[in-house]
């Protein structure tokens, strides 16, 4: 019974994390970059939004500014990677660390900024889960439509090709470095947007928000795509799948909490889920490869033996 009571909250939070996973999808799946900026930029989004709302800025405007701040963090990682030649993973880690300091200074040196849900009008809050689901759902629909339109423009198509085949892209006159920066900006903008929604939903921004966010994003992507790729492997269905993955992740999360697992172990659980999704295809491929070579060896031995008897 408790589980069903917790379900609306799990769905609302799952939607927000699903939105963040869409940001991760843009960097990880489209640009082919494992962008670790995410752990910092989601927190940046939350901090910017919380501080702005507390200072009387309307919630919708705070969310847009949080998006812009997140995009900026993506630009920093992108420039580390393209202009300074730092490997993309390391570039993300560096920005993430920079953002810890930046986020602290946004919060004015405190580790937490509460948002008063009664004196401020918020887009969503955990006190009203159905409303939160509606608001998060509406924002997600807008984001998916924008991305869908964007990735069919002239610029958007080259962004896809940049991740898919940089050699081909350069040969076709695409500025691959610019596209990587642009793509990381979009990705982290969306992540920070999710961070802003999360801060409103929880009613606070915490300096530790977002630790391990990349892993949650990847888990949502893997869970979602494992289903959506079987239905129809196109862009919009994939994104909807990723959102679904976020929701499933949070339902599992709640379920596990319900079973009595200490919340201390939840991050470990997320990491194990992602490791499993990455390892299974690899091990499967390896297993079949061995089976194939075993069969080939057996066949060769059999034909050899056959040859001997004939002789």
């Amino acid at each position, binding site marked *: 019974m408790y589980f069903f009571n917790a379900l609306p909250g799990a769905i609302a939070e799952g939607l927000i994390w699903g939105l963040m996973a869409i940001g991760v999808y843009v960097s990880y799946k489209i640009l082919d970059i494992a962008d670790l900026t995410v752990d910092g930029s989601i927190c940046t989004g939350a901090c910017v939004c919380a501080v702005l709302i507390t200072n009387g800025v309307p919630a919708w405007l705070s969310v847009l500014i949080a998006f812009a701040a997140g995009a900026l963090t993506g630009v920093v990682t992108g420039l580390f990677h393209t202009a300074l030649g730092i490997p993309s993973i390391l570039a993300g880690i560096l920005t993430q660390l920079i953002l810890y300091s930046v986020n602290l200074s946004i919060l004015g040196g405190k580790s937490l900024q509460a948002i008063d849900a009664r004196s401020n009008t918020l887009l969503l809050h955990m006190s009203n889960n159905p409303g939160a689901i509606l608001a998060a759902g509406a924002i997600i629909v807008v984001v998916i439509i924008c991305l869908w339109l964007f990735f069919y423009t002239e610029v958007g198509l080259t962004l*896809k090709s940049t991740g*898919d085949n940089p*050699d081909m892209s350069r040969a076709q*006159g695409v500025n691959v470095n610019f596209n990587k920066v642009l793509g990381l900006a979009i990705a982290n903008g969306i992540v920070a947007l999710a961070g802003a929604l999360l801060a409103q939903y929880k009613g606070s921004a915490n300096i530790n928000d977002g630790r391990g966010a990349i892993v949650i994003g990847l888990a949502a992507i893997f869970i979602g795509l494992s289903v959506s790729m079987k239905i129809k492997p196109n862009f919009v269905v994939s994104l909807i799948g990723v959102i679904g993955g976020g929701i499933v992740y949070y339902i599992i999360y709640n379920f596990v909490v319900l079973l009595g697992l200490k919340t201390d172990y939840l991050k470990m659980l997320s990491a194990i889920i992602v490791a499993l999704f990455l390892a299974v295809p690899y091990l499967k491929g390896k297993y079949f490869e061995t089976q194939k070579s075993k069969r080939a060896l057996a066949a060769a031995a059999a034909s050899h033996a056959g040859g001997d008897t004939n002789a």
Partner: protein
Amino acid sequence: MLKITNLQKTFNPGTVNEKVALKGLDLTLKDGDFVTVIGGNGAGKSTMLNAIAGVWKPDFGTIEIDGVNVTYMPEHKRAQYLGRVFQDPMKGTAPDMEIVENLSIAARRGTKRKLIWGIKKAEREQYKELLATLGLGLETRLTTKVGLLSGGQRQAITLLMASLQRPKLLLLDEHTAALDPKTAAKVLELTDKIVQENELTTLMITHNMRDAIEHGNRLIMMHEGNIVVDVEGEEKKKLTVEDLLGLFAKASGKEFANDRAILS
């Protein structure tokens, strides 16, 4: 059309792996020239092509395309002048994108890409007609992901992509080497057709001596970072493989050596 002057490139300078790849190379191509390039291992054929394409900067010398000095122009900028087909069929197309998406990206090579619809309706019709001319049945598979196609089909599409936006210079880097003989012949036939129809100036590296003789109007042979044989017109038409081997031995003082060379 293309003017290379005193081009030099050394890889890994100052290390034990130091390799002088180009030694003061000079080459001038006239408008409409179709030049085939042959040479032994490490002769500098691909190095020359990559220098023209801007994959890396030369140590010394200049490259001009149609009067524009492109020596230090970034790769994606000089792509506006160049059509390229690579040896690896996987390299020229984006596998996870549809055929029509690949073509539309290529059709906008050298233009400023905007936030407008990336594939126009009229384009689809045009691509269908062009794909039909390849004779591979691809005209009905516009929305197929390129990664599902065979190597030969991908090379054919890459050729089409290289010529959609007419390049000033077409660079073919052993683009049939990874294909089976029958497919290679088909792709070469397509190459001839596309080059002739669009009157393209072309530089084609090949490891097949007969192909080098039978295609194009001029043949150059490279050795140790320079051009050692350069024949064109009637003289080229009369060449035989034996002649080429003889010319090579005379120019280099060595036997022709290329792991993959096909002599017959």
